[in-house]
């Protein structure tokens, strides 16, 4: 049984409630970043790169059994931590669920306010790119 996007968001909100300072929150993101599997060098193509981030981000997606699977990497570890959270929420979900996801948890856990405006723009770009992948897969159904 698949866990829904909302349920995962709720889990993440609960996890972040445990942190009472920025250091813990950042260290958690750094750990998440370190644990995210690297993507192959040959998959780091110009088409996979996300603009709007100060660091480089590559995002790839595949569809299996009508579920979208995301793979991503970045040269900056904090960025990878954020991608890891997005992947946890949006990967293994059906395209229409990804497209319709509100992702309100980002504001709740203070990700947007914790990060600089340029980084927040990068966050928006990442989500947009994930949704575009989902949209592409939905059309090929």
């Amino acid at each position, binding site marked *: 049984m698949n866990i829904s996007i909302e349920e995962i968001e709720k889990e993440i909100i609960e996890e972040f409630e445990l942190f009472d300072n*920025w*250091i813990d929150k*950042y*260290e958690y993101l*750094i750990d998440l970043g370190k644990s995210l599997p690297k993507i192959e060098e040959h998959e780091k193509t110009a088409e996979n790169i996300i603009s709007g981030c*100060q*660091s*480089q981000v590559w995002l790839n997606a595949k569809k299996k059994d009508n579920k979208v699977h995301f793979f991503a990497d970045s*040269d*900056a*570890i*904090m*960025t990878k931590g954020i991608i890891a959270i997005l992947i946890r929420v949006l990967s293994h979900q059906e395209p229409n669920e990804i497209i319709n996801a509100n992702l309100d948890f980002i504001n709740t856990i203070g990700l947007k306010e914790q*990060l*600089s405006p340029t*980084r927040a723009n990068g966050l928006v770009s990442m989500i947009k790119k994930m949704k575009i992948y989902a949209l592409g897969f939905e059309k090929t159904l």
Partner: protein
Amino acid sequence: MRNEKEIRDLFPLLDIKVNERPLIYFDNAATTQKSREVIAEIEKFYLHENSNIHRGVHHLSQISTDNFEKTRTTVQNFINAEYNHEIIFTKGTTESINLLASCYREILKKDDEIIISEMEHHSNIVPWQICCQNTGAKLKIIPIDINGNLDLKNFKKLLNSKTKLVAITHISNSLGTINPIENIIKLSHEKNAKVLIDGAQSAAHVKIDVQSLDADFYCFSAHKLFGPTGVGVLYGKEKLLNLLPPYQGGGEMIKDVSFEKTTYAPLPFKFEAGTPNICGVVAFKKAIELIKRIGIDKIQEHEDKLLAYATKKLKKIKGLKIYGEAELKSAIISFNIDGIHHYDLGLILDKMGIAIRTGHHCTQPVMKKFKIAGTARISFAYYNTFDEIDECVKAIEKAKKMLL
């Protein structure tokens, strides 16, 4: 240096807290903080003096015109220009360079050559590329060595009778190198080439004397020397400015307009079409006066000490590499730490109240030279302190622990 506290009190924004920590502002190469006097002047202008300039006969217009022109004379004295009409106000260094490049588009012919260097800011690369695309002129590049010095031997080889302009930065914004512009100007003049010096990073840090340098053109921005944003200067020798075609058309820059023929106003107004940043120009005077009061020698002396102290302390951090170790260097330090992305470092330092710049600093060719995507950059101003450097080094060590 006068009393440290006395100096810092002149800059109110230095006293704030960022993320509950006292701000340490090390991003002065991007922009400096503004003095109380500059801020007060801006308020005074809009409360008591606001009016358009050079047009009205009325009381307020006279006051703002006088004050605007007083800044022109202050800038003239600041860089020791021969005449005050050699000072053109623009919106910043970028516009100053674009102004000149746009004029040169009308002058250059196919196969003429422009020389720039590998360490230029994008604002001193792209306008010349556009200029070359439009005219068929060629852009030649002086390479830099591994320490960030210009290769002068190569420069001498590049110079020839086709060279019409040499556009070089006085101080590199990403490496801190202070270029031997006196020598560059001398060598260029031997081949009858004109020289533009990009002084964006130098005006607040080293003495500028355009006459003794014999610079043909020199430009800088007010906001990098404690003044307001949106104000820049293009200095040009009278004779040369008179030879250039106008830049933008509009009000203020004309003598007579008819549909058959328009004649242009004399210098400096020929290059100042439209209503300028009057308030910014007026307030800029206060920033220059402050620099003069402190003394540029005192500023340089203090910043040199900060640079030496910070360089020594940073080098003790294991895995830290500094980019740009020219013999003559201004108070800018670009660096990376093994295994750490500069952007991660910047984010964590920000959390500790420390403002640094991360990225390619609009000098992608420099990054390419060193085969890196970017650096973390610390840049000092006169109001920075040794204690701030100590705090920053501690913060870098802490960030390193978190990230590695």
